[in-house]
């Protein structure tokens, strides 16, 4: 079936990065993200022949990825903090200062994201990081757009709370380290 293989190659090329990114933010570990990404595309490859095209390919892939992530998280509890692994992934094209800033932000976001529940985390990743529309996000989650909006509002409120607490801790940590240096 050369047509099927060719079609899969096109889909894989077009959506690999987004799927990997979503999985990496969801599980918080580079190693696990790679394994899950491979599993997702393997599932997609096997079931591509039966894909009816009722939805967009990207939505279909995200549904597979979300289900795989959920089953992975259900098997493995609690989620291991993979901050350091993911920080290695930052782009090397930027300046060293930019890389450090991005790593700080990334670390904060990833730590906060892992404290959200799976639905809220998926919504934040799709809407705020990948730029999905509310409608598209609702299709992936198989829920209403209203639910997406409500859950996003709650997720952002929760993130704000988490990040505020982290910033206070960070300030305290900075002061403490300066005191140690001055000694």
């Amino acid at each position: 079936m050369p047509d099927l293989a060719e079609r899969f190659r096109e889909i894989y090329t077009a959506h690999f990065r987004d799927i990997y990114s979503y999985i990496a933010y969801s599980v918080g570990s580079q190693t696990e993200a790679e394994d899950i990404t491979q599993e997702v595309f393997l599932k997609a490859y096997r079931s591509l022949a039966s894909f009816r095209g009722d939805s967009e390919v990207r939505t279909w892939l995200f549904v597979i990825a979300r289900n795989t992530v959920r089953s992975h998280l259900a098997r493995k509890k609690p989620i291991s903090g993979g901050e350091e692994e993911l920080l290695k992934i930052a782009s090397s094209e930027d300046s060293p200062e930019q890389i450090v800033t991005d790593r700080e932000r990334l670390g904060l976001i990833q730590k906060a994201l892992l404290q959200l529940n799976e639905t809220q985390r998926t919504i934040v990743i799709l809407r705020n990081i990948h730029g999905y529309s509310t409608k598209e996000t609702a299709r992936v989650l198989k829920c209403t757009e209203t639910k997406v909006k409500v859950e996003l509002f709650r997720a952002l409120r929760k993130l704000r709370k988490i990040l505020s607490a982290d910033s206070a801790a960070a300030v305290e940590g900075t002061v403490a380290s300066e005191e140690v240096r001055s000694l």
Partner: protein
Amino acid sequence: MIQRENPDYVAGLLSSIKPLEPRPGLKEEIYARIVQEPVPAEVPKRFLRMNGRSVAAIAASFAGAVLLAGGVYYTQHGFFGKVGFRQEIAGMPTDVRGMEPGSDSGMQTKVPSGGPSVAPGQDSSKAAAEGNRQANRSETEGTKNVAVSQTPDSGGNRENAIMSVKPQNREDTDTNNSGSGQNLSPASGPAQNGGDTGTFAVAEKRDDASEMGTAVKEPDAAQAGLLALEKGLKVTLRDASSVRRQFAGKEAVDAITPKDVSLIIKELFAANAAWVRVNGMTINSQDSVTASGNRLVVSGISMSPPYVVEVGGDPAQIRQAIQEKGSVIDSLWKSSKIEVSFEPIR
């Protein structure tokens, strides 16, 4: 520094985050592993689809609709064959019903000239049976034959040709009479002949026919079938609506009963109904109308409301008779027990 007081800080922070990039070479590694898998075969679609819906589901919906329609038809008409057979039997005159298979039940029914003519009020079935016996006895005795002719008689009354009774041995001079074949009027038949369903009366030239010694002819099956096409009145009897019953202070159980229907049927026969059909089943005054629980049983066939009673005859006349003050329908309606609707049959 984290801006703790800024409410848009989180949204700004999230928007500054970009999708994570995979490590170099990961994409090719995974692809190489996946394509080592055997190429998945094309899975035949389990169901044909039409506009996104399974054809099997559409077929199931259609089958359900057919079953539903069949159920509705059954509640109103019963089984096709059973009721059809009963209608045919019930619609036939009693003499034809009484005949055994193989007997002369065709269009041409021979009645001896001296045979019993059906007098008003006489039981036509007995008369017909007796006539058949006599016909068998004296068939070779050169009696006068009366036939139901399908051809227009010489009198030129072509419109009523099918329903005409033509004496075969009439004198030529008799043909000068206009409409020499006796025109049969179903509407006036049973009332003058004991109320039997298939009994005809001679509407015109009755005296001429009797003078000539021509017996009044009982209709055969074909004529009985034509009866169903005659005009009449369709009376639908339903339980009174709950609102009307509440308004009248009636209980919900106070609904139409089989006894009410049987009284109405008797009243219809008394009001000179040519024929009566209840829920598609033709009955005569001799048929048993009983009750089994809340269901009406006519000659062994169980029926349930609403009762659609079709009555042969002049619609206005019948309606006036059954709506007369003090009639069964009138009293039931006034007691908020039933709702009645009338519809003329044309």
